C-alpha cells in the first residue's frame, strides 16, 4: 500500500520556535491528521531551588520563571505570601503594584501583536508595533530602574515610591497609547489581509475552552467571562470595577478565532489604560512597605506556620501560586501553575484538520511560554514505567558506591 501520510517533527530546537517544545504532526497532503505535543525541555527545577532559600531570595527567583512577564509571578507570590503571613500591603503600595502590573500587560500584549504579525509574514507591522512598545519599556525603566526584571515588589508592599515626575511620565505615556491603540485598531482589525488570514483560524468554541480549562485572553475570546481581576479582586482591583473584555460586548458576536484574540488583546490595552488612569488619579498617600525591615520580615516568616493559594491575572492568563510556611525563613512547599500550561492543551484539537501553513498562527496565538509551563520532569524506564524519587535516589547511591569502590 502506498504511503499516504508523512510525519513532520518540529522542535525541540527549531528556527520557528523561540523556546524549546516539540510538535509532531502527521500530514496528508496539506492537511494535518494527527498531532502530538511534547513538552518538558525547559525544566529548570526552580521550585526546588526556592524551597532551599529564604522567602526574599525566592521572590526574586520567581521573577526569573518567565522571560517576558517579569511581574506576574512575583505578583502572585507576594499575594500568596501576604495571605499566608496575614499581613496586608499599605494602600499606596497596592496602587503602585497595580500600575506596574497593568503597564506590563500593555507591553506584553503589544509584544504578542508584533509576534503574530511576524508569524504571518507581516514584518513591517512587527517593527512598527515594537517601536510603540519601546515607550512603555522606557517608562518602566524610569520607574523601576530596569527595562525587564523590575525588582519592584516585596512581601508586604513595593520597594520604590512613585514621585511627581514618574506620575507625569505615566500620564504622557497614557496619552501616547490612547493614540497608538487607535492606530493599531485601524491597522490590525480593519486590514483585509489580516482579517482573511486570522478569521476562522485557530477557532476555539466555548465547549472546548471549558473542557480544556483555557485561561486568559484565549478563554475570553471564546466568549467566557473570566478574569481573576473580576472574579477574585485583589489589591487596587477591588476598588475598580474591572469587567472581562469579551468579543460579544465589542462587536456582538463570538467566533473564538485568532482575529477575536487580537481584538480582545487590543481592547484590553485600553482597559489597562483606564485602570492606570484611575490609579494615578486616586493614588493614596502613606508608606509603601508593611514591614520595612527585611530582617524583621524574615523573622516573621520564620514564626509563621500556614499555607495559602493566590492568583494573579497575568497578560497570558491566570498565574496561581501555592506556598506553605513551616518554621523556616522560606517556603517549605512552593508550587507554580502558569497559564501557558492550560493553553498549550488547545494545540492538539486546533491543529487537527488545519493546514500546514496555519501551524505558526495556532502555535503563536496563545502566546506560549515554555519556561513558565515546564514545572515537572518525569524519568521513564525503557518499558514506559515512571521512576519514582526513591528509585532514582537508590540508583544515585549505587553509582556513588560504585565510583567510591573504583577510586580505592
Amino acid at each position, binding site marked *: 500500500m502506498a504511503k499516504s501520510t508523512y510525519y513532520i517533527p518540529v522542535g525541540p530546537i527549531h528556527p520557528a520556535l523561540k523556546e524549546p517544545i516539540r510538535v509532531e504532526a502527521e500530514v496528508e497532503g496539506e492537511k494535518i491528521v494527527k498531532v502530538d505535543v511534547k513538552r518538558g525541555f525547559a525544566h529548570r527545577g526552580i521550585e526546588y531551588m526556592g524551597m532551599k532559600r529564604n522567602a526574599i531570595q525566592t521572590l526574586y527567583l520567581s521573577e526569573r520563571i518567565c522571560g517576558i512577564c517579569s511581574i506576574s509571578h512575583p505578583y502572585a507570590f507576594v499575594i500568596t505570601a501576604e495571605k499566608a503571613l496575614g499581613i496586608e500591603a499599605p494602600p499606596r503600595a497596592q496602587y503602585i503594584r497595580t500600575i506596574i502590573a497593568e503597564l506590563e500587560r500593555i507591553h506584553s500584549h503589544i509584544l504578542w501583536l508584533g509576534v503574530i504579525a511576524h508569524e504571518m509574514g507581516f514584518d513591517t507591522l512587527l517593527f512598527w508595533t515594537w517601536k510603540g512598545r519601546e515607550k512603555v519599556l522606557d517608562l518602566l525603566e524610569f520607574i523601576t530602574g530596569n527595562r525587564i526584571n523590575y525588582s519592584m515588589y516585596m512581601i508586604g508592599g513595593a*520597594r520604590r515610591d512613585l514621585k511627581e515626575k514618574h506620575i507625569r511620565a505615566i500620564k504622557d505615556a497614557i496619552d501616547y497609547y490612547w493614540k497608538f491603540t487607535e492606530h493599531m485598531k485601524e491597522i490590525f482589525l480593519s486590514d483585509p489581509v489580516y482579517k482573511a488570514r486570522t478569521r476562522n483560524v485557530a477557532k476555539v468554541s466555548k465547549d472546548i475552552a471549558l473542557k480544556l480549562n483555557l485561561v486568559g485572553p484565549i478563554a475570553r475570546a471564546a466568549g467566557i467571562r473570566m478574569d481573576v481581576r473580576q472574579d477574585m479582586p485583589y489589591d487596587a482591583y477591588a476598588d475598580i470595577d474591572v469587567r472581562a473584555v469579551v468579543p460579544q460586548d465589542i462587536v456582538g458576536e463570538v467566533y473564538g478565532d485568532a482575529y477575536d484574540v487580537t481584538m480582545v488583546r487590543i481592547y484590553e490595552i485600553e482597559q489597562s489604560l483606564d485602570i492606570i488612569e484611575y490609579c494615578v488619579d486616586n493614588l493614596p498617600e502613606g508608606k509603601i512597605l508593611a514591614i520595612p525591615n527585611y530582617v524583621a520580615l524574615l523573622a516573621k516568616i520564620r514564626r509563621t506556620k500556614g499555607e495559602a493559594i493566590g492568583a494573579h491575572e497575568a497578560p497570558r492568563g491566570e498565574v496561581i501560586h501555592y506556598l506553605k510556611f513551616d518554621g523556616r525563613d522560606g517556603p517549605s512547599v512552593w508550587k507554580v501553575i502558569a497559564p501557558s500550561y492550560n493553553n498549550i492543551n488547545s494545540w492538539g484539537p486546533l491543529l487537527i484538520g488545519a493546514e500546514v501553513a496555519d501551524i505558526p498562527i495556532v502555535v503563536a496565538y496563545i502566546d506560549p511560554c515554555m519556561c513558565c509551563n515546564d514545572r515537572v520532569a518525569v524519568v521513564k524506564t525503557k518499558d514506559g514505567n515512571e521512576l519514582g524519587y526513591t528509585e532514582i535516589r537508590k540508583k544515585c547511591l549505587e553509582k556513588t558506591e560504585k565510583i567510591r569502590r573504583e577510586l580505592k
Partner: protein
Amino acid sequence: MPTKVMFLILKQLLEKPFTNPFPVKHAPKNVTELIEKVQKGEVQINPPVPVPEGFRGKLHYDPERCIGCRLCIMVCPADAMEWVPELKKIRHYVSRCMFCALCVDVCPGKKFPGEEKAVKALSMSEEFLLADYDKYSDNLIEEPPEAKEKGI
C-alpha cells in the same frame, strides 16, 4: 488595494531611524581596527542612550563603610556575595549579580565621626557596559584592596 499599512510604510520612509546606532552607525569590517581608530581619535563613538535616574547598574562597594554585618549575603538571591573572614568584609562577583539592589536596601552603612547620617557601603552605579572575556577579571570583582594585596 491600498490599505492602512501601505500608507504607514510610505510615512516610515520619510522618518529618521528610531533606534540609536550604538556604538557606530554600521557594523565595522574589523573590530580591532575600529578600536584602534577610536583610541587615536579618528572615529567618534555614538554615545548610548542615557540611563534614567535610579538605574540599577554595576554595584559599587566601599569597604571603608562596611561594618561586616553580612545582611547582604543573607538577602542576595544569586549568591553573588562572598564573606572574607580574614578582613571581615565581603567580595562581590558582578558576573553572578542579577541587579536587584536588595543588598543596597538592606545595607546599614557606617557613620564616620562628624557625619549626621550613616552612608551605605553599597550603591548602584550607572555603569552597564560589563561585557568581558573573563568572568573573574578585575573589572567584575568588587573587593577590599587589602584582599588583593594579601591574595586572600
